[in-house]
């Protein structure tokens, strides 16, 4: 490497006279700014970002465009030529083709949030190289919205069940899981201190969780017959490494200043928990419950990508500069084993609101779950067997998992910090429920880290949860209003099985006779003495 640098240095002394290397332009960027009286970050922040921080990839706008254009040509060329001729849309296992309706759209929400999150950092960063890097990220995130949308768009044109792929941007409004992604991605990336947002977006979501969400998910896709998603997602991820570097340099830009470094640990702990709280269960559900053909247990991917590599290579190496282990890490690890099983139970219980077709785990899947998560059958498998027997799939049964749970005293609540539903009496993850009354309103929390976030910053968490917003709606009316019905005007887009027979209609849903309740109102709540 030393020799090579020497060659480059020689080139510098005798430059090619008729062309300019992008990095020759990049080296002047730090001189593009100037000082003036009112110059400051325009959004509230605890930090002062160093004006001298560098950017690691040294791209100019034009070279960025050339590189990205090449990515686009390859990606759309594959989709529109190669995969089109292979009829790729109809080679996908339905379990996977269905879960991609949610995965592509939920990830799109993250990419969209990241546009504003990167704009926030572009404003707060003072170093021109960093600002240039963040602007490229803004544009990247537009690319990623376009790409994730294109997965739905492509599936909508080529897959045998376009319903839901075409209109998830509408259906998600009633999906009880959607506030979870809104909080982590749609708002955690952009509504708060720029550095806190950067840790959420770049250091945790991108540097940590996009590896399993975007990279290893492509293995599951390919195993299940989907070559569309790998074509797009692997190309998305080629931008993420620059974003990870952006996030890392955000930390570098504040680390040498003890005055601001003292705030870092709080933001790191909060951001890790905020992102983990949604991503650990969601990715696990998508991979393990959205696939027929399994690749490796989610908890093993989590151990590799999140714990050993991300925590070890990124955070572990920063310990010498004062970064400490997030206090929530042991709870996060427990969640890595069980939280996705907890969430899957609720997703299946609430299937009419998800907009996709899903099925209970079959015998083969149940054996796989038990082998990799010993104890799974006795806790979850038994319930699924009982649901199956009670007519879970049968449109004439009037069966609904959510009602089954409630009738047996297993209440479903919404965590007021993460926005996600939880069932305290059936959770095997780190759930440790607590309920509070404050200023005349009741709140539910699934664990102490979220409760702490609310107790310290109540004005940040004022949302109406699913039950509060739709209390009093009859289930089939709600699904219909939100666009969850097929073009025959009666068959539901969501289904509790994958067959093309016995499909549920609005009438079947009406038979369940469920009017959305607000558990915080109907149950008999008492103060704890």
């Amino acid at each position: 490497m030393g020799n090579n640098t020497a060659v480059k240095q020689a080139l510098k002394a005798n430059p090619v006279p008729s062309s300019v290397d992008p990095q020759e332009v990049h080296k002047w960027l730090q001189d593009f700014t100037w000082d003036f009286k009112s110059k400051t970050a325009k959004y509230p922040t605890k930090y002062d970002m160093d004006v001298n921080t560098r950017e690691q990839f040294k791209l100019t706008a034009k070279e960025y465009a050339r590189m990205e254009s090449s990515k686009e040509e390859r990606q759309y060329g594959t989709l529109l030529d190669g995969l089109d001729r292979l009829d790729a849309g109809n080679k996908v296992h339905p379990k996977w083709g269905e879960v991609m309706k949610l995965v592509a759209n939920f990830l799109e929400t993250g990419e969209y949030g990241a546009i504003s999150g990167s704009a926030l950092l572009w404003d707060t960063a003072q170093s021109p190289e960093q600002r240039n890097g963040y602007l490229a990220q803004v544009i990247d995130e537009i690319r990623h919205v376009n790409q994730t949308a294109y997965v739905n768009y492509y599936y909508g044109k080529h897959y045998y069940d376009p319903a839901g792929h075409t209109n998830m941007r509408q259906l998600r409004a009633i999906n009880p899981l959607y506030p979870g992604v809104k909080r982590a991605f749609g708002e955690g990336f952009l509504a708060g201190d720029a550095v806190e947002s950067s840790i959420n977006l770049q250091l945790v979501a991108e540097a940590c969780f996009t590896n399993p969400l975007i990279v290893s998910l492509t293995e599951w896709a390919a195993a299940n017959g989907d070559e569309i998603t790998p074509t797009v997602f692997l190309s998305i991820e080629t931008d993420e490494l620059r974003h990870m570097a952006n996030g890392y340099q955000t930390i570098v830009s504040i680390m040498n200043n003890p005055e601001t470094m003292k705030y870092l640990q709080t933001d790191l702990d909060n951001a890790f928990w905020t992102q983990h709280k949604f991503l650990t269960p969601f990715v696990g559900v998508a991979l393990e419950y959205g696939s027929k053909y399994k690749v490796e247990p989610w908890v093993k991917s989590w151990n590799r990508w999140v714990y050993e590599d991300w925590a070890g290579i990124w955070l572990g190496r920063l310990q010498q500069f004062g970064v400490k282990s997030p206090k929530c890490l042991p709870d996060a690890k427990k969640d890595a084993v069980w939280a996705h099983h907890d969430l899957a139970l609720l997703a299946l219980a609430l299937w009419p609101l998800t907009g996709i077709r899903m099925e209970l785990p079959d015998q083969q899947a149940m054996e796989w779950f038990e082998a990799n998560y010993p104890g799974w059958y006795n806790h979850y498998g038994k319930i699924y067997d009982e649901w199956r027997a009670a007519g879970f799939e049968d449109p004439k049964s009037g069966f609904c998992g959510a009602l089954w749970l409630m009738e047996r005293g297993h209440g479903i609540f919404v965590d007021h910090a993460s926005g996600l539903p939880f069932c305290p009496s059936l959770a095997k993850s780190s759930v440790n429920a607590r309920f509070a009354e404050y200023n005349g309103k009741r709140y539910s929390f699934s664990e102490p880290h979220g409760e702490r976030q609310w107790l310290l910053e109540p004005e940040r968490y004022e949302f109406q949860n699913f039950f509060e917003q739709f209390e009093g709606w009859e289930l089939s009316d709600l699904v219909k209003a939100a666009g969850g019905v097929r073009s025959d005007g009666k068959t539901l887009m969501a289904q509790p099985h994958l067959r093309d027979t016995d499909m549920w209609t609005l009438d079947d849903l009406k038979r369940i006779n469920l009017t959305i309740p607000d558990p915080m109102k109907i149950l008999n709540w008492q103060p704890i003495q």
Partner: protein
Amino acid sequence: MSSNVFIRGMVDPERQAQIQALVPKAPLETKRDHIPFAKRGWRRLTEYEAVMLHAQNSLDAIPGSQEVGETVQKWPGGRGSYSIESTAAISSNWFNFRDPSKRWFQPYVKQKTEEGQTAERAMKAWVEGGDTGMMNTAWLNQILSKHYGAMIFNEYGLFSAHSTTTYGALSDLLKTWISQAAFDKNDAGQMIQMQRVLLGKAFPGFDPSLVEAKQAWTQGEVWKPAREFVEHIWADTYDWVEQLWAMHAVYDHIFGQFVRREFFQRIAGLHGDTLTPVIQFQALTYHQQAADGVSAFCLKHLIDDEPVYGQHNRRYLHAWTGKYLPQVEKALKAFLAIYKEVPVKVDGVTCRAGVQAGVERVVNGWADRFAEPIGYKFNRNAFVKNVMAGY
């Protein structure tokens, strides 16, 4: 060494047989229109709309949004992630905006790549074809070194001002267009420096560093009012519609157009500089696209197509124009002092009458395009006369 043999479901016969057994004979749904709820009129959504429209997750406090309820997490202090407080302009449906250039990511980077390749070839031809020999040394050392370099700061400052416009914009297709306009500004600054690095290679005495240019920008009289405008719009202005209007529809359409088109494009050739016009041509294109976008947004979306708040928005655009036009006038007036430094004087071009004709071209162009539609009246002759006092 591989720990597993990877099985691809698409080509593995066993898996594909299982999958095909589950694929229904006829599609389960015949309607394949994307985002059907957003369909306007008879037509299906274009690709430009399909990949972006309604991607924004936002509370329904923002008119036109599909979501219901409140954001889950807000800023400390209670500010929402997207909220109508970010501008004084009002829309009945923020999601109705469309960029006339219909650029989503793919066409955007494709176009920019082509421009990059054009510039690369032009620079090569310029150096190798012998054009450098024609360059007037005083133009090179006085104007390109100092004032052309100072223009980088103008573009960089305007690019920086777009952070709040990108963050604050209230719908997806608005954010797309605005961040592209920002990227163009960043690019415009970098292209000037790219040209200056090349000049440093072609002319041994030319220093591509920005020391002299920064001095001209921060301390020189030629750029002072322009710099004050840029600083104000970057650091002191938070209303993103006001920023967009002030930057693209007022400042850049008068001052920017004059500096790029009437000065550098026109005067460079007189000095044997055939390269600057090629590079600046791109910046002119970027401004054209930004002007088209701001016109589609402010004049069409916020006024012509706005059923309830058109008059309201017109009032604000009017007030903002009144707020910024005097500063733009000052900027242009101060800039005209640059003609004292121009080495080659040509009658009809650099003389008072020639310069005044240029000022009139930009002022008339601006008045027709942006002042008339909002009913903004001003005395063009007085404006030109005041500006010409700087000559």
